[in-house]
Each structure stands twice: as structure tokens, then as C-alpha cells.
């Protein structure tokens, strides 16, 4: 099986909502969350998707 998409990172301000295999970045404010997501998107060549206002994921397509 070829996995085409993968979650490369999870960025959140709500620690209790996330867990699992991907690297998790816990931020303290909304601004930090945006900044982390922007940087990670650029570094990983992925797309930052918003699951909710508190949880962002970086996905490789």
C-alpha cells in the first residue's frame, strides 16, 4: 500500500486534544500557532490545514 498523504506535524494551543505519532508543537498563543504553522509549512513543503481554531496540521500531499 502506498500512503499518499501524511501528517508531518501537529501544532496546537490545546494540548489535551492531540496525541499520536506525528511531532506535536504546543504553542501558548494564537499568534505563535500561526507563526509555527507558517514556518513549518515552508520548511516541510506541505500545506497547513486548519482542523479547528486551536489545531493545525501540516500535511504532505
Amino acid at each position: 500500500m502506498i500512503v499518499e498523504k501524511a501528517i508531518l506535524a501537529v501544532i496546537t494551543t490545546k494540548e489535551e486534544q492531540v496525541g499520536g505519532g506525528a511531532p506535536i508543537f504546543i504553542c501558548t498563543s494564537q499568534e505563535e500557532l500561526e507563526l509555527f504553522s507558517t514556518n513549518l509549512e515552508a520548511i516541510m513543503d506541505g500545506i497547513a490545514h486548519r482542523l479547528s481554531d486551536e489545531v493545525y496540521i501540516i500535511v504532505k500531499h
Partner: protein
Amino acid sequence: MGIESYLNAILFGVVAGTLARLITLRSDYRQYPTYLHGRIIHLSLGFIAASLGALAIPALLELEFTAVTFLTLAATQFRDVRNMERNTLTELDQFELVSRGSTYIEGIAISFEGRNYLVMFTAFLTSLAYIAWGWFPSTVVGMLSIIAALSFMSGSTLRDIVEIEESAISFDGAGLYVDNIYIMNIGLEERQEEILKYGMGFILKPKNMNVIATISNLGQRQAILHDVSVTLGIYKDSGTPALTPLIKRDLDDGRLGVFILPLVHDAELAKKVIGSVPVLENAIKMPSEATFLKGGKK
């Protein structure tokens, strides 16, 4: 009949055939084949095809029936042309910002093969006409076959099968929409602003049932995106997958939502470009031709 007139017949055939290839070989906005080497390859192959076609009639008249078997050689040869084109284009496709997609590539490869056969027929008919009627009718037949070859070349374009309308793009939370069609999830505000600034949306309304099946083909959709980004430019670089033009489908009625990021922001021009995208042979479906629906043979 003397060897002289055979030579002339072959000459006429070869010239008409090569001319046909020259005329059907066009480098347009796709820039393929590129000047100059690509053209030389295809002109040479066209010349070979023309020679094979022109030789057939004299060979038959001399009762050299086995000589006709070399036509099978031609078929093998031209199938290789198709393979060659397919391999080259597939290799190059990885380095396109917006890829052509294999359906488009196959379409291009098929037409390269097909045009060689047209060249062969042109040469065949021209030499036949020369032997049967002389040089003048042969010239006329040559010209007619070239015209016929040209008419075989032109397929239909999207303009014939869909209505194209400009539509606003909008965000509902993180979801990007063209009209009411969901395109993708864009998380970052910054990206969303970029997309609202550079993005454009279009809705393609199918004109009938057959068209719904044809435009739902992923290869056809990729061809639209490729052609648009080649002609109008693209606001994207490697490593920015969030800035990817996409086409999604409205499941209810088969309309397509086209989201593009052109450098040239001109809606009328974009409509024209989308309208001129060829309908890919491999994408065409005809559900209405199903015989079991018409009450014919099952």
C-alpha cells in the same frame, strides 16, 4: 510501365507525404515539439512514412507482393514513435509546476503516431493517382489528402461542450470555495489572503449528460489546469503546495469548479483559454450510446 514513371510516382508520393507532415507538425503554445531538433526527428520520420506509402503501389504493380509486408514494419516503427513521445513527455512532466497528466500525454503521443499514418496514406494515394492518371490529377489528390489530414487533426474543444462562467472564490472558515464547490482546506490567514488576491474561479456547466462523464475525468481536468497555467502564468513555486490550482466537482449536477492562480488577471482571456483546451480523446465518454439503453442488443 517503365522505371521512369515509377520514380516519378514515388517522388510525387514522397513529396506530398513529407509536405503533409510538415503542415501537420505544429509547435503552438505547448511548445512541443520544440525547435529545432524535435522537428527534425518528426520530419525525418514523416519522410520515412511517406517513402513507405509511396513505394507500395509500384511494388504491387511489379507483382512484388512480399514487398508489401514492409508496411507491417511501418506499423511497428510508428508504434515506437508513440512510445518515444510518451516516455519523453512523462519524464519531463515531473518538472512542470502544473503537470500535463498522463491522459494528455497519451493524447499527444497518439496524435504523433496517427499523423504518421496519415502521411503514409497521403503518399500512397498520391503515387496511385500518378500511376493511374498522370501528374496533374496526382497533384490534386495530394492536396486533397493533405486537406483531409488537416481535418482529421482538429478535435473539439471545451467550448463546444461546456458553458464557462466566472465565479467568485470565497473562504468559509478554512475551506476554499468556488461558488458552492469545495476546493481545499487552507489553514493560514496569510495564504488565504494570497489566494483571494491572486486566485480566480470559474464554473464549467456541462451541456449534456455525455459531457458530465467526459469532464469528470481527472486527466481532462489536469489538462485544463496545465493549459491555463502555461498560457496565463502561475502564481506558484516548488515547495508551495498550498498554491496549487485545482478543479473539483459538484456531485449533485456534475458542474466543475475551477480554481486557478494566474499571473495575468483577465477573466475574459481566461475563459478563452479554458474554452480552447482540447477535449482529450481518452476522456470522451458516451453513456448515451449504450445500446442496452436504446433497447438494442444487450
